[in-house]
């Protein structure tokens, strides 16, 4: 709220740098050394930018807001007609973009070292994925929100299809069909809100809805809400689209899934907050969001239990834990939203640890199915330690970060008078533990009693085409990335205020001043 600086120099850079990098990488196509240098350099630049950026607005066309009196103001807390499309960079945006750009460094490094062909376009797609996520989390107008979601889903299809297996191409095709449907829905919702309020700026639209009597037009708002929730469900892969989204997560390369799950968490957070700000006063709006989140958690975690492949277990768990994030947001209280946003931060980190471990398991050349791999702990003890810490964090064991956010979520649902939801959160974290320890036991701890690697039989799990040769040693860089991420897990677990300080401000604003971005 103290952010008054307008047309902040850093905000356009979060969009421009990835685009320019993507164009360059596309032109370079297959010169892997140059591509690696450029990609890593620009991802580090993005990381530093996110760390040092001040808070403020980017008002497109550079106009200040026009007050009802006809004067101009740059102060965001004063009521004004913004006239323009705008981005906002605040605490929530800073922590999410910082973590995302840190992961971008890792993902770029991993994909540059594990992929063999088409490396330029692939990393370009990953950079564009970063850009679309950055747009969605910073946006404060419907127009960019819609474009960000559409771009994000098309890029996602590209990244998934790049892994070259038939299942990933199918997943990409199915997901793109849905992007067509939900994109159309979102355009209609947009048109309805524009028709009712006349503003494309979310702040102004909320002010209009709150200050003017819309009882004759509220039916239009309900249908707009329905379409918005539909595209929210689609973008985050919540129930009932979770089978498609888990297909997407499970069939992409695990390092790409790191970026994909980050993108979908950011989409969930950004769109969920916008829905809450716009429609939070409608009856049953929160109940609808809550039921979607509860169903997502239940479906995701139950389906995770019956998977026999670490990759697919993780795919379903990512979906289930998206439900935890949306649960916090849909509770609609300060505590709940804080818990949900903190859960998003934690979730991105610990799921990345687990996914990078999954990628490392692939280097042993037998895929990630519990039927084919075994005894990895003996050959890579540090990897086993990392995956166990990741599983502990995911299932909310105390010294790690998952505990801190899950306990806030449980407290929030108890104080909202929903003990059943608290019980479901608890059950989800316990079930996460069970679902993860089945593959961890079989892959890492059980002795390897399958003498020959069955290359053809390993199903969807095995890295076949473009990945490196089987049984090449796990690169040292993976251990470095895991160490950094585990350090973040432990630091956030011991000292949660570090992240809570960033997200609490947003939660307070969403509940008490919904028109302030």
């Amino acid at each position, binding site marked *: 709220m103290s952010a008054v600086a307008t047309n902040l120099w850093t905000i356009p850079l979060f969009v421009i740098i990835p685009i320019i990098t993507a164009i360059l990488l596309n032109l370079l196509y297959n010169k892997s050394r140059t591509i690696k240098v450029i990609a890593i350099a620009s991802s580090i630049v993005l990381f530093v930018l996110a760390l040092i950026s001040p808070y403020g607005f980017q008002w497109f066309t550079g106009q200040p807001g026009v007050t009802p009196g006809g004067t101009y103001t740059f102060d965001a807390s004063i009521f004004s007609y913004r006239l323009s499309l705008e981005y906002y960079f605040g605490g929530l945006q800073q922590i999410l973009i910082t973590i995302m750009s840190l992961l971008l460094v890792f993902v770029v490094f991993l994909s540059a070292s594990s992929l063999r062909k088409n490396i330029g376009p692939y990393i370009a797609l990953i950079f564009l994925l970063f850009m679309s996520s950055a747009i969605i989390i910073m946006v404060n107008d419907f127009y960019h929100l819609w474009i960000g979601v559409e771009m994000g889903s098309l890029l996602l299809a590209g990244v998934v299809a790049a892994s070259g297996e038939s299942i990933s191409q199918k997943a990409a095709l199915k997901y793109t069909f849905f992007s067509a449907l939900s994109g159309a829905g979102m355009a209609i919702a947009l048109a309805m809100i524009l028709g009712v309020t006349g503003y494309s700026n979310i702040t102004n639209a909320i002010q209009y809805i709150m200050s003017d009597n819309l009882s004759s037009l509220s039916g239009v708002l309900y249908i707009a809400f329905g379409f918005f929730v539909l595209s929210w469900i689609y973008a985050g892969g919540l129930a009932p689209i979770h089978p498609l989204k888990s297909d997407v997560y499970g069939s992409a390369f695990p390092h790409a899934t790191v970026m994909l799950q980050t993108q979908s968490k950011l989409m969930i957070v950004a769109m969920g907050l916008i829905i809450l700000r716009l429609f939070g006063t409608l009856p*049953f709006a929160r109940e609808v969001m809550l039921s979607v989140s509860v169903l997502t958690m239940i479906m995701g975690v139950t389906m995770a239990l019956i998977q026999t492949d670490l990759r697919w277990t993780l795919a379903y768990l990512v979906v289930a834990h998206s439900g935890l994030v949306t649960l916090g947001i849909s509770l609609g209280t300060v505590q709940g939203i804080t818990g949900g946003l903190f859960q998003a931060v934690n979730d991105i980190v610990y799921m990345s640890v687990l996914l990078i471990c999954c990628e490392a398991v692939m280097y042993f050349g037998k895929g990630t199915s519990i039927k084919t791999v075994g005894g990895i702990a003996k050959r890579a003890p540090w990897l086993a330690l990392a995956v166990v810490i990741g599983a502990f964090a995911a299932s909310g064991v105390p010294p790690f970060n998952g505990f801190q956010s899950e306990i806030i979520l449980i407290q929030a649902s108890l104080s909202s008078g929903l003990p059943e939801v608290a019980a479901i959160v608890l059950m989800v974290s316990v079930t996460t533990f069970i679902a993860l320890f089945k593959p961890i036991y079989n892959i890492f701890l059980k002795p390897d009693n399958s003498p020959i690697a069955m290359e053809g039989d390993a199903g969807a799990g095995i890295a076949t085409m473009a990945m490196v040769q089987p049984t090449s040693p796990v690169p040292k860089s993976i251990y470095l990335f895991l160490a950094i991420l585990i350090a973040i897990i432990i630091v956030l677990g011991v000292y949660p205020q570090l992240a809570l300080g960033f997200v609490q401000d947003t939660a307070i604003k969403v509940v008490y001043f919904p028109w302030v971005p």
Partner: protein
Amino acid sequence: MGSIESLYDKIKNFTAQFFGGKGFSSTMTGYTTAELQASVFLLVLASLFRIFSVPLGIILVIAAIAGVIVFAPLIVTLERENESDLNRVLFWVVIYFAIIIAVTMWGR
């Protein structure tokens, strides 16, 4: 007596279904856990309806218990409905959308 016995028989048969064949495997344990989880989740979900009205919640919990016993094993149905078949997901999306619109309109 009769009804209790048949209920017991049902539960016994239901648990025995999981341990047919060659005892248990790492796949089967997952299915058993998921079945138990799914039934408990269903009960908790039914009890959530008490926020609308308490008698409705009680009726739904009883119905859910009956449903869990009658339709066991649930996980088979759940797995089938969770297939990533495009038309199936589209169907569920249309149903969801209809429910969302109906509920919010009704709330007005």
